[in-house]
């Protein structure tokens, strides 16, 4: 059920998850590490994607994110036309590898979550 190409889409884009690291907002800006840094410290973005000719897919979304959300060092988030290896992408809590990865067509109210696995443990 792909929405008409002319309609705009609403959804959310998050890096990390409040429940996963709730203390993150309390940290000093300089200490925010990992993928948080790339989104200017804002974890969850409610976004509205403008209507366009071709349907929105993850590939387009990454370009849009790079243009509209990334504040610094986009190479840590995007490499080539995909995410940097080591960043997990969950689409409505499901592994994007099962949903066509870059070719997944966004639906209204989708929730896209990016989690970095690259920090230490």
């Amino acid at each position: 059920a792909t929405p008409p190409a002319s309609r705009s889409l609403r959804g959310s884009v998050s890096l990390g998850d409040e429940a996963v690291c709730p203390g993150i907002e309390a940290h000093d800006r300089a200490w925010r590490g990992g993928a948080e840094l790339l989104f200017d410290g804002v974890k969850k973005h409610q976004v509205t994607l403008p209507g366009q000719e071709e349907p929105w897919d993850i590939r387009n979304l990454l370009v849009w994110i790079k243009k509209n959300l990334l504040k610094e060092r986009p190479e840590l988030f995007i490499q080539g036309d995909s995410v940097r290896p080591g960043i997990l992408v969950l689409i409505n809590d499901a592994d994007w590898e099962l949903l066509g990865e870059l070719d997944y067509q966004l639906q209204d109210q989708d929730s896209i979550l990016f989690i970095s696995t690259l920090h230490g443990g």
Partner: protein
Amino acid sequence: MVPLFFQVLKPRLWTCPESSISLIHRPLPAKRAPPPPPALGPRAVCGACFCAAFEAEVLHTVVAGRLLPPGAVVAVGASGGKDSTVLAHVLQVLAPRLGISLRLVAVDEGIGGYRDAALAAVRRQAARWELPLTVVAYADLFGGWTMDAVARSTAGSGRSRACCTFCGVLRRRALEEGARLVGATHIVTGHNADDMAETVLMNFLRGDAARLARGGGLGSPGEGGALPRCRPLQLASQKEVVLYAHFRRLDYFSEECVYAPEAFRGHARHLLKLLEAARPSAVLDLVHSAERLALAPAARPPAPGACALLDGLNRGRPRLAIGKGRRGLDEAGPPRDGEPERAPAPEAVPAF
């Protein structure tokens, strides 16, 4: 309920009771027989089944490897990061079945800003799980040396000052001391398959035969008087660990250590990601390779232990104790034992 599907990367087949849809099949790693699967079926599962499968897999690793016998008092090396958080949570779930009791041991390396926040996460975890927590500090154990002090002392060495090499050796020793403090019989650490594969790559790239030789297996039985150590998550991929933390809503600390960007590990990690893209089984294959690797006894020099490094630091020649400096240490005679009450030489202990 709408099933949520996850790809399980490991050579294992799980069936999700929520659905019979077959979605993804990944190649099995070469040369490694898949562990006995509970059922043949699609390798895509929902979040709840994924977590159950993950826990079952760790249980299988511990039981089949006889890593933690019933009655064991297990010290969990807790850093506040995703791996140790997941490990402690899974073992907490499995503890009644395994008949073990848990203690959290955190190491304070003395890294300003970074470690304080991580230790706060560990304290929250300990409170949530109602587990006893003990924090041991480098400064107390190692005659006042903190990692910040080590970093200043090695700062002249430029990009190869090897903070992480020092920290790794000292943390191993600190964890041992902490575990003894709490009366533990076993030590577990949260290393996952990706960590192990990175380590194998690093050791190869550096020609570090001593560490290559002791890298295999799921742990060490505790030679030379050291406590037995094991890595129950060694067969779990990084991705699985992160997904498990996500679905169990675990509170972990996700920042990188301030010294990590200069670590050699970063190069190994990058290389591993490239290899994995070309060959999805590369991570487990590397872990497997290390397990099967046999080095001639003559090619296995002992890796420097905490005492050798501290000796180098105290003499103002920290790099003597690592890398090429090992030769220098040999020439300078055996390192003085900084803590003579520990009779068994910690240098000889197989490390992770």
